[in-house]
């Protein structure tokens, strides 16, 4: 059977030992960076398709965060300390954990949840065929933008709680603590 002309030509071109006529591939890191920016763009487009839903999800997460804060606010209206922890120390802890959790949600969470679905529906087969690292695609495909809004509110509360505790961390102290959040997130998906 004869193949259609365009398939034929692509076949011969790919089987040729030197493909000098194709554009040279950019270095891997740059290539994946541009791929990732496309994935982010895709996620933005998807979220903007249902704007009210996007805002409501932010409200939902904010509400749950407030709920846990309320719990401790009520507790600390009765006591001054819980096992040496003061109110603002607990709020700093809660907001930091919320921040790490939201960053994880923003980058990875939806993707982790979707993996089993990809396997079940066979979409993973399709992804494995794409000329890109499958783990990269599976882990980072969907970016949850609302989570970054919530991460920002967590940072605001962290700063406020830090000021209440008269903390003044130096840049040298802040860099290790913020960078330890990143491996913390990625450990979960390995």
């Amino acid at each position, binding site marked *: 059977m004869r193949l259609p002309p365009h398939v034929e030509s692509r076949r011969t071109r790919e089987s040729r030992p030197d493909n000098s006529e194709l554009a040279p591939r950019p270095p891997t890191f740059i290539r994946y960076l541009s791929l990732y920016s496309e994935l982010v763009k895709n996620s933005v487009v998807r979220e903007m398709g*249902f704007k009210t839903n996007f805002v409501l999800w932010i409200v939902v997460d904010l*509400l749950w965060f407030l*709920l846990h804060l309320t*719990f401790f606010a009520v507790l600390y209206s009765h006591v001054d300390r819980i*096992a040496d922890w003061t109110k603002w120390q607990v709020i700093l802890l809660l907001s930091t954990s919320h921040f790490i959790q939201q960053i994880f949600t923003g980058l990875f969470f939806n993707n982790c949840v979707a993996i089993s679905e990809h396997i079940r529906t066979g979409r993973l087969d399709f992804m494995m065929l794409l000329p890109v690292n499958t783990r990269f695609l599976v882990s980072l495909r969907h970016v949850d933008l609302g989570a970054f809004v919530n991460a920002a509110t967590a940072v605001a509360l962290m700063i406020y709680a830090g000021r209440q505790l008269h903390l003044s961390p130096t840049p040298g102290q802040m860099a290790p603590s913020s960078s330890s959040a990143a491996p913390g997130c990625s450990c979960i998906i390995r």
Partner: protein
Amino acid sequence: MKKYWHVINVGIQNTLVYRVNFIFRSVFALVPLFATLSLWRAIYAGQADDFAGYSLAQMISYYLIVTVVDSLTAVTEDDWQIAADIKDGNISQFLLKPIDYLTYRLCLYGAGRLIFTACAIIPITTFIYFQRHYFILPADAATLGWFALSLAMTGLLQFFMSYTVALLAFWVLEVSTFIFILYAFEYIASGHLFPLDILPAPLANALHWTPFPYQVFFPVNIYLGRTTGGDLYRGLLVQACWVVALYLFARFAWSRGIRKYSAVGG
């Protein structure tokens, strides 16, 4: 009525498929519970007397009974399923059959709770056994009876509320955010997170005008013997009123929603 027994039977068989899932869910729900109890122990360690009128045993029993009430009455999958039925057009068949969708759903909810409780009973009983020094038993048989009555109404209240929110699917495409927002309010205002009477008095009193405390806080307080006499009867009456009100509202929402229903994909 015979047909609804069949529905319950089908519901039991359908939920039995997820029995291992239920066991896992009830086991892992004990982890945050353990954390909460540890937190309360730390609070009581730091002070000599009671916390807002609760002794340590009462506080720990409060959370244990909340867990029991929760496994008996919490709506887990029903609201998502109802919303999906509407969105995917599956309710069209119920409009043609001589079966009432609300009763049908109530039967499935009851069957689901029965199986969940049967699965959760081992892990929860084991957990309570390890906390037995702090576990308070009801004062007398009458207390237990009032608790059971209130528990039944709690179940209806939880169901009607979730049912009505799920019916929002007639009007909007995606109801999960609404379900989560309602759940957040239920979680805090029903006394799930902490007993409501540790709140400042005006706030706690204001909450008693809403249906939320009757979803968890009220039955648990009956069990602990903190609601007795006139308060008990008045509370049960208010709870019954909320059940009727929410039932009527659910019926109303359904009759309005059905006019809007477009049977997409049905």
